[in-house]
C-alpha cells in the first residue's frame, strides 16, 4: 500500500523531526504515566497503612468508651447508673490488691487486670451484633492493663476509703501502675497491656497473621498458653520466639513476634481470648468487636444500626481511620489528588500543542512538496490522510516513548526507596489521662491508637493506564495531524509551488 509506504518513508527519513515531535507527545504521556503511577502508589500506601486496622471499606471496629468528665461527682459522675454498675462489675470483679488484708512485711507477687476504660460487651451482645443485617462476621477482643506488683508490704496502715457516687472502687483499694515505696517495705510495679484475640477469626483479630515478623500464629488446637509479643515489647524485654513469659503465675510460650499496627490496638502481648478472659475473670466479655460488613455498601447502615442498638457504642470505620491519617503521606496524597489531575491535563494539552506546532512547522517546510502532490493529482482528502497518517505514526511512537519514559521513571522512583510518614491521631475516648483510681484512666483507651510509621511508596503503572497513555498520544498525534493537514489541504497548488524553501 503506497500510503503506508510513504508514511513510513517520511517517518524514517525525517528521523530528527519524527523523534522531536514524538518526544513532545512522549513528555505528556510520561507525565500521565508517572503521576498516575505515583497516585496509585500513594493510594496503595494509604491502604497499607489502613489495612491492619480494618479491611478497607468493609470492616469496622466497635467499642463502648467511657465518657469521663472532670466536673460533677468525680471522674465517673456522668455515667448512667447502669454504666456505673457495669463498670463496677468489670473493674471491681478483677483480682485486685487489698492492702487491708496484707500483712506488713509479707511478700507479694500479683497481677491485677483492668479493662482499659471501655465498657465491655458480653457474649450475648456479640451474638446480637453478629445477627444485625449486613454483618458478615464479628470477632471480639479484650484488652486489659496488667499491673504487676511485687515486693514487701510496707509497715503502714492504709485507711481504706469507701468510694461513693461515681467512684469505681467496689472491691477494695487498688494501686495503679505507678511505683513507689511505703515505710519499711518496698513495692515495685510494672504494667503491660495484654489483648485476647479470637484466634478462630485471624483476619479480624487485633493481631493478624500478616503482622507477624517472626514465628507463627495461634492455632485453635494449640496450647492455651501461647503468646505473640509486639516487636517493641520483645526488644525491651529481650524476648523472641521460644521465650517464656509469666502472666498471673501462668507460663506462656512466645510463638510469634508481630509489628504493631499503626492506629490499631497496640498491645504488648497477645494471647488467646478465652485464656485471658479466664485469667482476668472477664468470662465471656470483650471490649472491642471487629465487625466485617457483607459489602462496602453496608458499612454505613451497619454502623448506624450498631449505634442505635448498643448504647454508647462507638463505631470506627475505615473512612474514620483514613480521616485520621496525616503526615507527609497524606500531604503527598492530597497534593496528588488536587494537583495530579491538573498536572496531567496541563501536560497532555502542552504535549498536544507542542506536537501540533512541530507538525505545523514540518508541514510548512513541506509546502512545495504538498503543492507538487496536488499538481500531480492528489486530492485534499489524500493530502489530509497522508499528513494524519504520519501524525498517527508519530503519536504511536510518542506513546511508546512516553510509556517507556514513564515506566523508567516509576522504576527509578521505586528503586530510590522513597518513604513517607503516615501518622494516625489517636481517638481518645477515655479522657482521664492522669490520676484516676488505681490506674484507671492512665491507660487511656481508644478505638484508634496514635502512632506513626514510614511507608515505602511503590508507584505502579497498570496495563489499562499504559493503554490509556498510548491512546492519549495517538489522540494527540491526530489532533496535531489534523491541525497541520487542514492547513496543507487548503493550500492552492499554485501558491504552494511558488513557495521558496
Amino acid at each position, binding site marked *: 500500500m503506497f500510503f503506508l509506504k510513504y508514511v513510513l518513508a517520511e517517518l524514517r527519513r525525517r528521523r530528527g523531526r519524527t523523534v522531536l515531535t514524538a518526544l513532545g507527545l512522549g513528555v505528556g504521556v510520561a507525565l500521565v504515566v508517572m503521576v498516575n503511577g505515583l497516585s496509585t502508589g500513594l493510594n496503595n500506601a494509604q491502604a497499607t497503612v489502613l489495612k491492619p486496622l480494618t479491611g478497607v471499606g468493609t470492616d469496622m471496629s466497635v467499642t463502648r468508651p467511657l465518657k469521663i468528665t472532670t466536673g460533677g461527682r468525680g471522674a465517673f459522675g456522668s455515667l448512667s447508673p447502669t454504666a456505673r454498675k457495669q463498670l463496677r462489675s468489670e473493674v471491681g470483679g478483677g483480682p485486685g490488691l487489698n492492702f487491708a488484708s496484707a500483712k506488713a512485711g509479707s511478700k507479694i507477687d500479683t497481677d491485677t487486670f483492668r479493662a482499659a476504660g471501655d465498657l465491655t460487651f458480653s457474649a450475648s451482645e456479640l451474638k446480637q451484633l453478629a445477627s444485625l443485617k449486613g454483618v458478615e462476621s464479628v470477632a471480639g477482643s479484650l484488652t486489659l492493663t496488667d499491673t504487676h506488683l511485687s515486693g514487701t508490704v510496707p509497715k503502714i496502715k492504709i485507711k481504706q476509703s469507701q468510694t461513693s457516687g461515681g467512684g469505681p472502687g467496689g472491691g477494695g483499694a487498688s494501686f495503679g501502675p505507678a511505683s513507689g515505696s511505703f515505710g519499711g517495705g518496698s513495692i515495685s510495679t510494672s504494667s503491660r497491656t495484654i489483648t485476647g484475640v479470637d484466634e478462630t477469626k485471624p483476619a479480624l483479630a487485633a493481631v493478624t497473621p500478616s503482622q507477624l515478623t517472626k514465628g507463627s500464629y495461634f492455632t485453635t488446637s494449640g496450647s492455651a498458653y501461647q503468646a505473640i509479643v509486639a516487636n517493641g515489647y520483645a526488644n525491651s524485654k529481650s524476648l523472641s520466639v521460644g521465650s517464656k513469659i509469666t502472666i498471673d503465675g501462668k507460663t506462656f510460650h512466645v510463638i510469634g513476634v508481630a509489628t504493631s499496627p499503626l492506629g490499631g490496638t497496640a498491645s504488648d502481648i497477645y494471647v488467646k481470648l478465652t485464656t485471658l478472659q479466664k485469667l482476668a475473670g472477664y468470662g465471656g466479655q470483650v471490649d472491642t468487636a471487629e465487625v466485617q460488613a457483607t459489602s462496602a455498601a453496608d458499612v454505613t447502615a451497619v454502623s448506624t444500626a450498631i449505634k442505635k442498638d448498643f448504647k454508647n457504642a462507638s463505631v470506627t470505620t475505615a473512612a474514620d481511620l483514613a480521616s485520621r491519617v496525616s503526615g507527609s503521606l497524606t500531604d503527598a496524597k492530597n497534593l496528588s489528588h488536587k494537583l495530579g489531575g491538573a498536572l496531567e491535563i496541563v501536560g497532555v494539552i502542552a504535549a498536544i500543542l507542542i506536537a501540533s506546532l512541530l507538525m505545523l512547522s514540518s508541514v510548512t517546510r513541506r509546502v512545495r512538496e504538498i503543492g507538487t502532490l496536488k499538481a*500531480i493529482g492528489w486530492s485534499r482528502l489524500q493530502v489530509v490522510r497522508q499528513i494524519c497518517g504520519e501524525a498517527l505514526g508519530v503519536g504511536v511512537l510518542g506513546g511508546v516513548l512516553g510509556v517507556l519514559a514513564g515506566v523508567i521513571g516509576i522504576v527509578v522512583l521505586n528503586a530510590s526507596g522513597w518513604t513517607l510518614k503516615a501518622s494516625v491521631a489517636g481517638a481518645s475516648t477515655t479522657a482521664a489521662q492522669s490520676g484516676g483510681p488505681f490506674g484507671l484512666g492512665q491507660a487511656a483507651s481508644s478505638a484508634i491508637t496514635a502512632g506513626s510509621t514510614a511507608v515505602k511508596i511503590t508507584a505502579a503503572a497498570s496495563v489499562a493506564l499504559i493503554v490509556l497513555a498510548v491512546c492519549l498520544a495517538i489522540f494527540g498525534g491526530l489532533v496535531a495531524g489534523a491541525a497541520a493537514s487542514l492547513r496543507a489541504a487548503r493550500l492552492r*497548488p499554485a501558491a504552494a509551488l511558488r513557495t521558496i524553501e
Partner: protein
Amino acid sequence: MSQQSPQAVREPSAAAFTPQPEPAPETYELSGVSKVYGSGSTEVRALDGIDLTIARGEFVAIIGASGSGKTTLLQLLGALDRASGGRTLLNGRDLQTLEERELTRLRRDTIGFVFQQFNLVPTLTAGGNIEAAIATTKQDGRQRAQRVAELLEIVGLAGRANHLPSQLSGGEQQRVAIARALANGPSVLLADEPTGNLDSATGDEILHELQRLVTDRGLTLVLITHDAKVASAALRTIRLRDGKIVEDSE
C-alpha cells in the same frame, strides 16, 4: 496554430481508468484571460487579456523576461490556479467553472507537470516518486509496480527504482520527474524551465527526451524557458511581456 493533430497515444493501463470526453480539436482555448494578484495599491496584473489557442500535439515554448507572466500562464493551463477573468478551455471544458474535485481529476489524468527544480519527494525513491502519481488511481499494487518499471524504462532509468533523489544526478532526477508526469498517460505536458537546473549537455538530453515524447505519443507540450536554444526547438514560440502576448510565431 499548428496544423498537427495527431491522436494522443495513451498508456493502455492508465487509459482504462481515465475516461475522457470526445477530444476537442483544440487542447487549449484561452480568451481574455487575466490574472490579478492582490488588490488596491498592491494589485499586480500578472496576465492581461490573453487570447491563445493551442492545438493537440503542439510543442509550444513560452518565453519572456522574469515577471512577464510565464509561470502564471502555465499554472492556469495546468489548472493549478483560477484566472481572475476570461475563459480557459481545456479539451472543451471551462476550467473556471469546474469544481475543485474535477480540477484534481483533470490534473491527475490529463496534465503532466515537469518542474525546473524537479520537485521530487526527497523521502521517496525514484520508483516511489513515480508511484505517488499512480497511487491516486485505482490500480492495484502489481499494476502500479509494472507501470513504474515501464516508465523508468522509457526514461532510461531502469535499475534506479530504489534510488533516492539525493542519490541521483540532476539529469536523472529530471528524468524521474518526466516519468512521473507521464505516469497517468496525460495528453498535455507542461514544463516549467525543465532544463534550467541542468548543465548544457544534460539539458540537451532532457530536451531531446521531451521532443521524443511529443513525437512518439502525440502529447501537447507547453514549455517555459529563458533559453533561446531550448525555445528554438519548439515549433511555436510565444513571447510574453507585462502579462500580454507580444509575439506568437504561429
